[in-house]
C-alpha cells in the first residue's frame, strides 16, 4: 500500500488571475499532505458537484508546510470548460483532491548542467523542480539553466521564482517582446552544443509540439532528457487505462503505457511522437 496516496479536501484561499487566461490558486489542506516530488501531480475537482464531471490533473507549482497546514499552489491556464469553472471559484470553495500521482522526475545530484525547458504553463512543474534542486541538492559545481518560452512578454509566468533557483533564465517570446525572438526550442538549440552530453541533463515541459522539436534537436546531441507528458485522464491513478501513450518497447515493439502511472515523466527517447 502506498502511503503517498490520499483523497482529501482542500479549501481555496486564493484564486486569482495572473495574466490573460492564467490563474494561480492556493489551496489549504488541513491534514497530512506529503511533500510531492517534482513531476508528481494531483487530480482536482469541485467537491459535491458533477460539472465538470471528471477530476482534472494539475502539477504542483509550490508546496509549503506551515504549522499543521499545507499550502499547495497550482498555476493553471484556462484551457476549456473545467478550468473555466475552476477559475470562477471563490475563496472558501472546497475541492476534492487525490494524489500524489505519477512517477516523478529522476533527480541527478551530480550533474554539472541541469537544463530546464518550459513552454507556457509547463513552467509550473519545471519551477517546482528548480526549487527542489536548489533546496535539496547542494552541489556547487551544478549549473541550473532555464529556457522559458511564452507568446509575449505579457504572457511570461513564474520568472521571479525561477530566477531564485536558477543560475540563468533565458527568455524567449514568439513576438520578440522580451528576450529571444522565437520559439524557446530555438533559443535552446543555439546553445545545445555547449552542453557536454555526459554531464548534462534536460527536463522539459510544454506543448507536445515543443517536446517533439526538442527530441529532434537531441538527435544530434545525445543529452539525456526527461519530459512531462499530458494526456486526458479519468482516474489519475492507473485504473481506467484511459491515459495511455505509445512508447518504444523491447526491439521494434510499441506498447501503451499510462501517463498517470508509468509517467507523466518519460525519457524523451522512449516516446513515439504522433
Amino acid at each position, binding site marked *: 500500500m502506498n502511503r503517498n496516496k490520499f483523497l482529501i479536501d482542500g479549501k481555496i484561499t486564493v484564486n486569482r488571475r495572473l495574466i490573460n487566461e492564467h490563474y494561480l490558486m492556493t489551496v489549504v489542506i488541513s491534514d497530512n499532505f506529503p511533500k510531492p516530488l517534482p513531476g508528481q501531480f494531483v487530480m482536482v475537482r469541485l467537491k459535491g458537484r458533477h460539472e465538470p464531471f471528471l477530476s482534472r490533473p494539475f502539477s504542483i507549482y509550490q508546496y509549503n508546510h506551515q504549522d499543521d497546514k499545507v499550502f499547495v499552489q497550482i498555476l493553471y491556464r484556462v484551457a476549456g470548460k473545467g478550468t473555466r469553472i475552476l477559475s470562477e471559484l471563490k475563496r472558501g470553495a472546497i475541492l476534492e483532491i487525490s494524489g500524489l500521482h505519477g512517477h516523478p522526475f529522476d533527480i541527478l545530484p551530480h550533474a554539472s548542467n541541469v537544463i530546464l525547458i518550459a513552454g507556457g504553463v509547463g513552467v509550473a512543474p519545471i519551477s517546482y523542480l528548480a526549487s527542489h534542486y536548489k533546496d535539496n541538492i547542494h552541489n556547487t559545481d551544478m549549473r541550473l539553466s532555464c529556457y522559458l518560452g511564452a507568446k509575449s512578454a505579457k504572457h511570461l509566468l513564474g520568472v521571479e521564482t525561477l530566477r531564485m533557483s536558477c543560475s540563468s533564465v533565458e527568455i524567449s517570446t514568439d513576438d520578440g517582446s522580451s528576450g529571444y525572438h522565437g520559439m524557446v526550442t530555438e533559443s535552446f538549440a543555439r546553445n545545445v552544443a555547449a552542453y557536454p552530453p555526459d554531464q548534462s541533463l534536460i527536463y522539459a515541459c510544454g506543448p507536445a509540439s515543443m517536446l517533439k522539436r526538442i527530441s529532434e534537436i537531441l538527435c544530434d546531441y545525445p543529452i539525456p532528457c526527461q519530459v512531462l507528458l499530458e494526456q486526458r485522464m479519468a482516474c489519475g491513478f492507473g485504473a481506467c487505462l484511459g*491515459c495511455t501513450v505509445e512508447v518504444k518497447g523491447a526491439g521494434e515493439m510499441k506498447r501503451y503505457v499510462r501517463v498517470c502511472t508509468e509517467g507523466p515523466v518519460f525519457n524523451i527517447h522512449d516516446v513515439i511522437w504522433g
Partner: protein
Amino acid sequence: MSVNIGGLWLKNPVMTASGTFGYGEEYACYVDINRLGAVVVKGVSLNPRQGNPAPRIMEAPFGMINSIGLQNPGVKAFVTDKLPFLKQFDVAVIVNIFGETVDEYMRIADALTQADGIHALEVNISCPNVEKGGMCFGTDPEIAHEVTQRVKSVTHLPVIVKLSPNVTDIGEIADSVQAGGADAISLINTISGMSVDVENRRPHLKMVTGGLSGPAIKPVALKMVREVVKRVSVPVIGVGGIMNASDALEFLIVGAKAVQVGTANFVNPRATMDIIDGIEEYMMRHQMQDMRELIGTLNEEEGLC
C-alpha cells in the same frame, strides 16, 4: 445486507464494475477491499490485448466516453500476475471475460475454472463477434444464448451474463441468456456514443466512437433493469451511472439484487465504501433488517406528486 447471486453469497450488494477497478491493486489505498460485496475485474481475453490507440477517453455531459479497447494481459498472465493480489482478501472475485469467437469464451472460462480463488464469471457479450462479421454477440438473442450455454458447459462457477444496452428489446436478450443457463444477469454495459472537437473538426477519440458511461446513462440503465427484472427469474445486477447510495438504492428498489459501481470509482475512488455506508444508513432509517425488505419494493401504483 447479504444477497445471493446465482448461488454466490455476497456480504453486501455492492460490487465494482468491470474495467473500472483494474484488478484491485490501484484501489487498495483508497478502499477496504474486504468490505466489498465483490470485485469484478477488468475484462480478460484469451490472449493479451494492447487496446486501442490514444486518445481513448473524453468527458461527456455527466459522464465519459471510452474506447479503451479491452486492454488486458490475457487469461494466463491474469491468473499468475493479477489474481494472487485479490486472493489475499476475503472478497468474492468475479472475472469478466470476453472473446471474439464462441470458442474463445469457452477456453477462457475453462482456464479460469481451473484456477483457484475465482467465485464467478461475468460474460461480457458486448463485443464484436468476428465469426459473424463483427456483429455484437449481445445484440442477437440466439448468439447470446449460445455463448451462455457454451460457457456454462465448461464451468461449475456461477455464470453472470452482462448485457449490452444497444438493442431494441433487452427483455428478449435477457430471456434467451436465462434460457441458455445464466445464473444471473448484469446490465447495462456502456451505450455507444461519440463527440467531436469542433475547432479541429476531429473526433475526440482516435477510434471515433466509444462507450458512454456515468450518470448520463442512469435513467436508461434503470429502465432496462426494471424491464429485465420483470422478464426473468434469475437475479439481476444493476449497473450504470451509480455515483452514490441513492443511485444504488434506485436500482435495488426496482428489483436489482445487487449493483455494480463503475465510472464513479474514477471520480471518487472511495465511492463503493460511501455507497455501502449509505445503504446501511438508509436501511437503518427505514428500519429494514434484510435486503429483501428493500429489493423490488417499488410502488408503481403511485407516481410521486
